[in-house]
């Protein structure tokens, strides 16, 4: 199909979609409606479970299976991406050169890296109380580590990034989620049931299973995203096919 035919086809479809979708939207409850039956029930359930962050309560307690699926997608994607970006038979690995970094950047990095890592841990640990949780904290942890790349260089990043361990940590995080799900079955309740003591409302230990699942997700996401970024960095900086003649320095 020619480019213009394709675009004409799209416009025809888009016009139909726009008209019918607009028609449908007029049938929706108004923006800002006060009727949210499921939402109201979820808030009540969250308070019963002594979890101050209702979103965490939904993600890790009420609809924990969604999160289990989501973490499995993350696990599968990390696994798939590392498999897809593995070194093929006809590729060789170049050695990246150490780059020069301004002293001020280095200093900023030295301050920022531990700060970001601490923030990440804090956000994971307080997921049941305040905005944030395993996923957000995990991403911040992973991004914080990569500030080393900015502050120092790729070789330093490689040294402080034990990929073999992180691979396993990623799997362990995913496994821990499933294993914590089994806790309910072992206690004679349902899969993923929040059977641990719920603690005091508003405390860091409140919410029963929620902080533990949060930690599992934090470990999985943190190590998973590092592994993910590592495969991309590896491709962008190091791997060359036999015919490529590019150099591996930083730009």
């Amino acid at each position: 199909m020619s480019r213009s035919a394709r675009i004409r086809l799209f416009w025809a479809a888009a016009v139909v979609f726009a008209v019918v979708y607009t028609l449908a939207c007029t049938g929706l409850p108004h923006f800002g409606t006060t009727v949210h039956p499921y939402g109201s029930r979820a808030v009540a359930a969250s308070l019963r479970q002594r979890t101050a962050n209702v979103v965490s309560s939904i993600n890790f307690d009420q609809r924990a299976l969604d999160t289990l699926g989501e973490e499995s997608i993350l696990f599968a994607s990390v696994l798939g991406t590392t498999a897809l970006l593995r070194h093929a038979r006809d590729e060789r690995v170049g050695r990246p050169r150490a780059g020069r970094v301004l002293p001020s950047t280095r200093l900023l990095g030295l301050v920022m890296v531990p700060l970001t890592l601490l923030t990440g841990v804090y956000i994971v640990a307080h997921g049941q109380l305040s905005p944030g949780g395993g996923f957000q904290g995990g991403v911040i942890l992973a991004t914080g580590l990569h500030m080393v790349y900015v502050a120092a260089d790729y070789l330093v990043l490689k040294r402080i990034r034990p990929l073999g361990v992180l691979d396993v940590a990623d799997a362990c995080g995913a496994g821990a989620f499933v294993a914590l799900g089994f806790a309910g079955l072992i206690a004679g309740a349902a899969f993923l049931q929040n059977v641990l003591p719920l603690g005091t409302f508003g405390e860091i230990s409140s919410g029963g299973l929620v902080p533990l699942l949060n930690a599992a997700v934090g470990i999985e996401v943190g190590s998973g995203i590092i592994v993910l970024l590592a495969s991309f960095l590896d491709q962008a900086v190091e791997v060359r096919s036999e015919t490529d003649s590019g150099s591996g320095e930083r730009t």
Partner: protein
Amino acid sequence: MTVLPFLTAGWIFLAGVYGMVTSRDIVHAVGCLAVAQSSTYVLLLTVGYRRGGIAPYFTDTPLRTRTVDPVVQALALTDVVVGATVTALLLALAIQIRKRHGTVDPDALTGLRG
């Protein structure tokens, strides 16, 4: 204002699809997929908005305060994660396509036809 948020979601979706239809670079097409996906966040969260509601956290708010719908937020959170990981997977494939085909232009990828 009553339907504007929902229509915005539809607009973003169509914009993303348009970008994919006209794309000349598969990396760009994957980026457009991410645009199309952001329409789902917008729809979910605007659907769950409650006039005058606050964020669903009770750390230091009275327990009877009216909140917005937390369920859609949990769904959107899942959606964000799914979107990011799928994007990573597709970008990995794009890298391999460039390596094996020497191009990322969909017009030049003619290995599978008929």
